[in-house]
């Protein structure tokens, strides 16, 4: 009987899973290049995330946790896996879905439909906060006013605050986002390339903003993007995969491309970048921005006003260039801004957030 089984794979030319040695290998695991079967893939994938959660003490029993849900693959897999693990390992968490409605017709309205289905599928209560309610502007209106340059700056700055506000409305203790290891590796490189030492020092920490009102954490910090896609595909999860209409990734950024090339050559390089980022020892004599609060809205800010208030002020006064780029003033901004944005897209892949949350 055993003999039969041992012979069979050789005859058909298929390999057995190298973890269970029983079932046929269905995929090559991107992280380790092991040939494994579907069931073992689910298990190692979920178990790794469980270990990350436990080892880093991301959650405490009884906590209310908001999952930043865009309807994209990362956040959908995150919502699914977290609710599974919460049940399986008795984390004792109250999970919520938190979505931001940027007001992008033909994109966000469709992806929100996905999130609404996820609400039912996973039985997680959903809260949607909209730019219109919070700021009085939808992205459609903003783009109509400022055009397709720098629009991602507005969206990114507003989203960050919107998530915090939504989390406060839900009275949650923590916010989790679906940033995966590819995203974080890209951020490490970008911060080196642009000389942003302050962000470099914090971009690899799994939990950020612990001194702020609502800490954020990234349970997918060590999870490969490719594996997330595979997991969503094999589990047939219901996710939305269209790119934002205002930031089509027609060409992916240099940094992203570089990371994909690296992964092809040496899969573990992505984890090595994270390891490097964690091991950086930044000289204490380096000037770091001081954190304070915005004088207008009370949000955390290193400047007098937070970025969102500066941008919003510009919008409301009809001066949308306010607060964009290096210059804070109006007189020397214009010419440089446009050039800046045309460069932006070359080096960075997604300033806009299909995956960001």
């Amino acid at each position, binding site marked *: 009987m055993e003999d039969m089984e041992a012979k069979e794979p050789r005859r058909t030319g298929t390999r057995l899973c190298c973890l269970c040695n029983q079932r046929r290998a269905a995929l090559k695991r991107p992280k380790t290049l092991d040939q494994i079967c579907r069931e073992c893939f689910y298990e190692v994938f979920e178990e790794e995330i469980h270990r990350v959660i436990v080892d880093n003490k991301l959650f405490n029993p009884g906590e209310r946790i908001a999952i930043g849900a865009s309807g994209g693959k990362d956040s959908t897999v995150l919502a699914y896996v977290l609710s599974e693990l919460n049940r399986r390992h008795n984390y004792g968490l109250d999970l919520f879905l938190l979505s931001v409605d940027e007001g992008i017709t033909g994109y966000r309205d469709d992806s929100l439909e996905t999130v609404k289905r996820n609400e039912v599928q996973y039985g997680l209560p959903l809260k949607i906060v909209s730019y219109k309610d919070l700021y009085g502007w939808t992205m459609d209106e903003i783009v109509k006013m400022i055009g397709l340059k*720098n629009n991602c*700056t507005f969206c990114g700055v507003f989203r960050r605050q919107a998530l915090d506000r939504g989390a406060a409305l839900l009275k949650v203790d923590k916010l989790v986002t679906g940033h995966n290891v590819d995203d974080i590796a890209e951020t*490490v*490189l*970008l*911060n*080196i*390339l*642009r*000389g*942003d*030492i*302050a*962000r*470099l020092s914090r971009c690899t920490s799994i939990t950020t903003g612990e001194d702020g009102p609502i800490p954020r954490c990234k349970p997918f910090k060590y999870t490969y993007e490719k594996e997330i896609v595979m997991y969503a595909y094999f589990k047939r999860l219901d996710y939305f995969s269209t790119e934002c209409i205002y930031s089509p990734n027609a060409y992916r950024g*240099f940094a992203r491309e*570089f990371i994909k*090339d*690296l992964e092809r*050559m*040496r899969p*573990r*390089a992505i*984890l*090595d*970048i994270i*390891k*490097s*980022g*964690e*091991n*950086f*020892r*930044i*000289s*204490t*004599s*380096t000037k770091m*921005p001081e954190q304070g609060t915005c004088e207008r809205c009370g949000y955390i800010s*290193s*400047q007098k006003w937070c970025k969102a208030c500066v941008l919003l002020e510009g919008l409301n006064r009809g001066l949308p260039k306010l607060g*964009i*780029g*290096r210059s804070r003033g109006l007189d020397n901004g214009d010419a*440089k801004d*446009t*050039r*800046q944005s*045309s*460069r*932006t897209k*070359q*080096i*960075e892949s997604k*300033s806009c957030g299909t995956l960001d949350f």
Partner: protein
Amino acid sequence: MACNSSTCQSSCFRNEDNINNVGEHPRDTVPIETSKNRTSVEGEQPSPCVKCKTNRTISAVGSPSGENGGDAGKFCGDCFRSNLYGKFRLSVTSHAMIIPSDNVLVAFSGGSASSVVLQFVHEMQHRAQKNFEASRDRSLPVFGVGVAFIDESAVYPVASNKYDKSIQQIKSIVYNLPPPLKPLHIVPITDIYPSDSGGKDRLGKLLDAVNDITGKEDLILHLRMLALQKVASEKGYNKLILGSCTSSIACHVISSIVKGQGYSLSADIQYVDARWEIPVVLPLRDCTAQELNLLCWLDGLKTVELLNSRRAGINSLVSSFVTLLQEENPSRESTIVRTAGKLKAFHFNRIPEINDCDMPLATQRRIKRYNQKPQESISSEFFCPICNSPLDNSELLSLSAHDGSQSSKLNVCCCSSCKFQILPKDPTLMEQFYLLLPQQLVSRPKSSNHGNISLLR
């Protein structure tokens, strides 16, 4: 480049020359177009050198093929040259890289950085010599200069006639420098083994045992350093000068990050690296490859490209990535180096204090140490035997938990990057690998690391 953040320090907009073009042709703007566009836009008269305001810029006089980046459009030849030499001189004097009593060895590969560093060191020596002859008391001695070329033909085979030609070229470059005569040491890389032990064979087997193509290349680099250290030590030099420039250091920063060496990275990229027996100094740290190439073209400095080793694997991927970024923004490489420079350096990243009473007072007075005031630094006691990088905490933990044979000792002593890309995975091959390593590497863990690790804990 996204510089929406207020903390951006990449000086994306400082270079006015490039703003004009980069926006419209983001990827394929070559510097040559910049100068053409400028002349056509601004009319017949291109603006003069930004420094002396009289002479015409290099690109206006006639630019070299493809090598006239930002500086060619800004400076005239003389100002460009003195600017570059100034950067070199500043790093030499402010870090006490060369003092009058020194005998320095220039590592010469034949590339443009090597040629420039040799030329500059020579100029410096020449000036010192003139001062020496002019001074009445002759209290300041002139430092000595030697040149070393590591012959890697055992590793990267070249046709013998090409090889002979290159060696001839190197000799003519070094010996045609005006006096004082600089001794040239042509050292085969196999010299890291004792002369009677079949070095070429051992080296070949050692490299064959490394499967990873990047690992193999890195190992050759480490062995080259070993060879340089050996010749410097044997021939009585006390400093080793490398031609590493901003561009090559930027590549090293990115590739170290990619290999997980974020902890040890800052040790390699400082002006001074005194963890070696003979301290290593990098006086061209603030000069980019474009500048060095331009100077070689301007002054007709000869380069020997043939024996340059090719880059492969991850290193080649990184260098094409950095080249791409540099094309997109000409200050990108220096931003990378500046950012990485904000990481804490190690205690050995400075020339050790010399408390030598024998040294003449005049020499002592000459040593400037503005960048030598005690800064915060990391002190590290344990180094990877292969790449000599300081070990981080997790690597130290595995080190302390170990007891076993010599060869498996190597496995725990190494940094995680060397473990992955250089050491063989198979324990039986490991034994063999250990025996193939040059003695200097193997003896390092024994003497410094393993003796006192038990005392430490």
